[in-house]
């Protein structure tokens, strides 16, 4: 009997679903073993029954549940609970589900402020009433999935990598254990590090120095070249079997999409320490909290304290 798979998406762009498609050939092997019972992006499976006859949101029983996106509305919260009830194993897919992701940057503001800004105060907005008909209530902040329901497996990344999805699903199908790496991006980064900056902080649109065509092992650390790189405070694993982190492969500094090294880590403190240690001026970072928690705002970002 094939393994039943359910997928649900909440506050998300849809990139992690594209990652599933991006798996390529191995996807064919996986599809032979699974049967998808619920997936809004692919299937026309209604939550309240196919003709709207139901009174409660319902998701069919499944062995594996994938959830992408953080919790932004009460509907998401209910669906997350329903998914947890119906799925034997629940996987948080992508950084939004794992840590809140980009939408969780909104956690720096009160919900009221956000609504005012978006629907009234923004200059490009035709000021109007707040939407209130037939929409679920907004939660007070963006929650990561595991803040709402217990999660069995987390696959971070923005978007997560096809290799990781395959790894996790195959491990699950074969009953093996799947664990995330615990090291930082710097541990997998091949660039030359001398623990001393050779430049002041640069804007991200300036070009780093490297010789095209030469291997990465001959290139100087991007942070030491003055580019803000989140490598020191970010979990590695984006490079997959190739090892070298994704952004570094493209001569770009790490964005931090794989999230912090551990649940207790505070990426802002780690990064400020790392910047100061190599001689860069941490005062030049305009928005510390958001810059260093870009993908991990759920539970980490909050409205700035008023003393």
């Amino acid at each position, binding site marked *: 009997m094939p393994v039943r798979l359910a997928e649900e998406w909440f506050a998300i762009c849809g990139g992690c679903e594209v990652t599933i498609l991006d798996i390529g050939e191995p996807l064919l092997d996986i599809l032979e073993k699974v049967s998808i019972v619920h997936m809004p992006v692919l299937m026309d499976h209604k939550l309240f029954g196919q003709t709207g006859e139901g009174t409660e949101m319902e998701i069919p029983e499944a062995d594996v549940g994938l959830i992408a996106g953080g919790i932004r509305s009460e509907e998401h919260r209910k669906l997350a609970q329903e998914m947890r009830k119906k799925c034997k194993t629940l996987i948080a897919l992508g950084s939004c589900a794992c840590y809140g992701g980009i939408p969780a940057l909104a956690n720096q503001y009160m919900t009221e402020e956000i609504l005012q800004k978006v629907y009234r105060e923004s200059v490009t907005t035709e000021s109007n009433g707040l939407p209130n008909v037939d929409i679920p209530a907004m939660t007070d902040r963006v929650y990561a999935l595991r803040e709402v329901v217990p999660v069995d497996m987390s696959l971070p990344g923005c978007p997560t990598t096809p290799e990781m999805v395959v790894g996790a699903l195959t491990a699950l199908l074969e009953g093996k254990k799947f664990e995330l790496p615990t090291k930082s991006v710097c541990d997998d980064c091949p660039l030359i590090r001398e623990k001393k900056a050779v430049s002041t902080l640069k804007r991200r649109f300036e070009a780093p120095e490297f010789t095209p065509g030469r291997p990465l092992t001959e290139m100087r650390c991007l942070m030491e070249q003055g580019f803000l790189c989140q490598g020191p405070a970010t979990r590695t694993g984006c490079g997959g079997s190739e090892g070298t982190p994704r952004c570094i492969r493209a001569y770009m500094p790490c964005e931090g999409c794989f999230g912090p090294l551990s649940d207790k880590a505070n990426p802002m403190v780690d990064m400020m320490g790392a*910047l100061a240690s190599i001689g860069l001026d*941490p005062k030049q970072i305009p928005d510390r909290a958001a810059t260093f928690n870009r993908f991990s705002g759920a539970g980490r970002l909050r409205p700035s304290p008023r003393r």
Partner: protein
Amino acid sequence: MEEQTSSAGTTAVATAEFEPLILAFCCYWCAYAGADLAGTSRMQYPTNARIIRVQCSGMVHPNLVIEALTKGADGVLMIGCHPGDCHYLEGNLRAKARAEAITLMLEDFALEPERFRLEWVSAAEGQRFAEVMTSMVEQIRKLGPSPFRNY
């Protein structure tokens, strides 16, 4: 009056008789020796600081300071050798750079910048060590307990 136990296991009576809990990271080569000198010379200074000996002030990562302050310490001192005197040549300069980063971040945690201080004390300055301790304790006493104490 209710008794509360702080994270360091010290018992202090709340509000009325507020006793600041201060963590002092002292470098092995200068500050700790300075503290030793203050002790052997029988200098008097408040006993609110818990000294943690580190090899160099340059190894005190901002993580340690922020963690101390957000887990109940009322103040943190980072004490190293005078600039130019570092046993490891420029460890204290790194400490200085980190101290600036720490001061910036205190704001993000809604803490007064005065709760953290970087000081230079040489091995011969027992007197200065006692003065630093006295003034830090006074300052923290004025600020009151850390908002994170019962967090």
